[in-house]
């Protein structure tokens, strides 16, 4: 069986022409961040939404657009998504480009696990925040991203470094600094984005932060 993008192009090409079908589908796949070879649960809805946008932009006749939408829907509903992914990712934080790499990897794993788009972004933002702190204050460190299963399934991210540690962590977590100096906005914000947030730190002891987000 063909990959989803090819199936969609085949369905649409006699209605809108091959070139337009290809652009709409390729853009939709890219924007919804779906892997056409291996669709995961939740992918169909995101892809359908993006394809709808593309069709609205490029197909002006309402009747023809309606027909396109019907075909998109029937093609997508016939797809059996693969089981939610599990995964273990380890990224060494050595320079600031690793921050971008870490948040991208976290977002991709979230997507493959079936998290909604909003949560993918929250997890990626949290990883970005914590990984940047490592580069900025400790120099180097490591991020481990794991899917967790059992009682509650979800994603767990552990960010660790052997830097100077954070002093006055209790005050920071209570938000006493953030309004004035901006210090701690990132870390307090990260806690607000996550379901679980644990931090172990102290002067000279390095820092280990563990965050979790659960699938509903």
């Amino acid at each position, binding site marked *: 069986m063909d990959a989803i993008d090819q199936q969609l192009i085949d369905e649409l090409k006699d209605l809108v022409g091959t070139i337009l079908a290809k652009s709409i589908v390729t853009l939709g796949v890219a924007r919804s961040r779906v892997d056409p070879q291996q669709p995961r649960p939740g992918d169909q809805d995101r892809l359908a939404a993006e394809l709808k946008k593309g069709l609205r932009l490029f197909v002006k006749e309402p009747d023809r657009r309606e027909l396109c939408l019907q075909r998109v829907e029937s093609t997508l509903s016939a797809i059996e998504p693969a089981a939610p992914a599990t995964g273990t990712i380890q990224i060494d934080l050595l320079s*600031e480009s690793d921050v971008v790499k870490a*948040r991208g990897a976290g977002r991709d794993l979230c997507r493959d696990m079936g998290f909604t788009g909003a949560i993918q972004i929250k997890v990626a933002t949290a990883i*970005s*925040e914590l990984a940047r702190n490592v580069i900025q204050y400790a120099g180097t460190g490591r991020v481990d991203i794991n899917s967790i299963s059992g009682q509650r399934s979800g994603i767990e991210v552990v960010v660790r470094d052997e830097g100077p540690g954070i002093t006055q962590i209790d005050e920071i977590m209570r938000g006493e600094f953030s309004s004035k100096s901006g210090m701690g*906005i990132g870390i307090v*914000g990260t806690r607000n984005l996550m379901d679980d947030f644990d931090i172990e730190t102290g002067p000279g002891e390095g820092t280990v932060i563990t965050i979790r987000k659960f699938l509903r």
Partner: protein
Amino acid sequence: MSEISRIPIIKLYENLIVSIQVALSDRLVLQIKDDITAEIESTGARGLIIDVSGIDVMDSYISRAIRDIGLMARLMGVRTVICGMDPMIAMTLVEMGLDLTGAQSALNLESAIELLGGNGKLDTRKKRGK
């Protein structure tokens, strides 16, 4: 992912348009700050539009940088409009308690241009002196 080293700044009549369509590294953020201020000075632009529709995440560092750009532009007499904010990123920003004061926002590029140009009619006659 190949690293991009610069974000283009486009001059459209009296406005500058910066469209961010890549994952922003911290280095790139600094580069944008430098480039925008230099470009404002050399072009004498009156408005600045930052299109964030392609940004992957907006964490505290990136949002602060964008806010700073808005403030710097204002000091140089330039109005800043941020447009194309992804709804999921907006939600994340609010939950984190971050905001982008210093710049106005618009839903998309068209409304950003309207906001700056006044009903979309761009007045190209009065050029600001350099």
